[in-house]
């Protein structure tokens, strides 16, 4: 049976971030915009975990928590509180409320998951064959160097495909004793925020896996990448051979 997680926050943005954080896991997500809705949903669904914002209209998080703790059937549900304020007094106030944990905004979805697994067991959803298919589409092997050719359009779907395929490939690279990757940007016409984000993810992932990365693409793109702090230090080779020689 899926785990049930309830998010209570008046911000759609925060609810979306929480939803995305739990998406890779086998759980059912419920949402409420304020404490009144949150209490009603909690009573109906009996969630295994509640992620609760403090500042909300109609009924705030502190009031909702107080009422939750008075209900016999709900009082043991673990609650992670969200707050935009990290001041000492605010933190003490939250601790005194008797929540299991709290998170100060801004936070990343992964940080929330790290907190959540202290209270509930999260099981990853079954993997699909999609990452294997994407791997074949984007990766080729040339001697001891892998080539990852990014598609012309970087959007949510292609980014997700590349990221998933990369996870599998870097594992293969490490297992096979290969540690070189040429990131081929020849299909890319110009910089965009999704491209910069994907490059950051690729470099972070490869660094963690001990895989060296070299870039290949047009000189124009190389100049455009220098405008972004994240990619300002990257050098770009114009051919695959030049990129390989740079290892």
């Amino acid at each position, binding site marked *: 049976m899926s785990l049930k997680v309830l998010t209570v926050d008046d911000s759609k*943005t925060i609810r979306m971030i929480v939803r995305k954080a739990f998406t890779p896991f086998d759980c059912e997500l419920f949402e409420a915009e304020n404490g009144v809705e949150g209490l009603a949903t909690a009573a109906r669904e009996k969630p295994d975990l509640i992620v609760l914002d403090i500042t909300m209209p109609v009924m705030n998080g502190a009031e909702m928590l107080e009422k939750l703790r008075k209900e016999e059937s709900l009082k043991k549900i673990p609650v992670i509180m969200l707050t935009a304020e990290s001041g000492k007094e605010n933190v003490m106030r939250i601790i005194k409320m008797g929540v299991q944990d709290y998170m100060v*905004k801004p936070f990343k979805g992964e940080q929330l998951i790290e907190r959540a697994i202290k209270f509930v067991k999260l099981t990853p959803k079954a993997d699909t064959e999609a990452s294997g298919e994407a791997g074949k589409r984007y990766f080729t092997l040339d001697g001891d160097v892998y080539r990852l050719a990014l598609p012309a359009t970087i959007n949510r779907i292609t980014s997700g495909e590349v990221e998933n395929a990369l996870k599998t490939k870097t594992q293969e690279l490490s297992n096979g004793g290969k540690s070189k990757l040429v990131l081929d940007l020849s299909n890319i016409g110009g910089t965009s925020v999704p491209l910069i*984000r994907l490059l950051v993810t690729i470099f972070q992932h490869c660094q963690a896996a001990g895989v060296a990365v070299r870039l290949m693409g047009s000189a124009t793109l190389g100049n455009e990448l220098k405008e*972004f*702090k994240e990619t300002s230090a990257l050098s770009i080779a114009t051919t695959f051979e030049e990129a390989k020689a740079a290892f």
Partner: protein
Amino acid sequence: MPISVRNVIMNLDALDIKAFTTNAVHEVFKTMLSMEVVPAGDGSPDGFDGTRVVGSVSFAGKVLGNISIHMNEAFARVMTAVMLGMEEEEVQGEEDVNDVIGEMSNMIGGNLKSRLCDAGLRCDLSIPNITCGTSFHIECRNWARHERLDFHYGPHAVAVEVCIKEA
């Protein structure tokens, strides 16, 4: 061990509001959007092309003031798409943009508010406000401190203004 809070009230002039705000902006952009914003030279407050979006939150208590975040609509939509994990074309109407920019303002304002409270200048934070338009000017008058900080992310500009005074 019991936790205690030292109630030391600092003078507003002694606080490095610029550093607090810069750190808050960097942290919020990096954590929520994976964007490394870079400080830019001083620019004109009206130097945004096209429609400008301004998110602001106010403080009230031992200090009064507000913090506002300015950007053009195009970048606001980029931020919204990144934050909500969607394509720019999927960002529907103003509601999503307002929610994201409001939440960014809340986080940056909440961070600054926390530093003020830690300095003994206890105050409360308002809910975020969003202002959009093509031709308007926001003037800060009669504040003890007025700081303007400019940043850029690639070709996109962001400005943050803080106006503050003791109550």
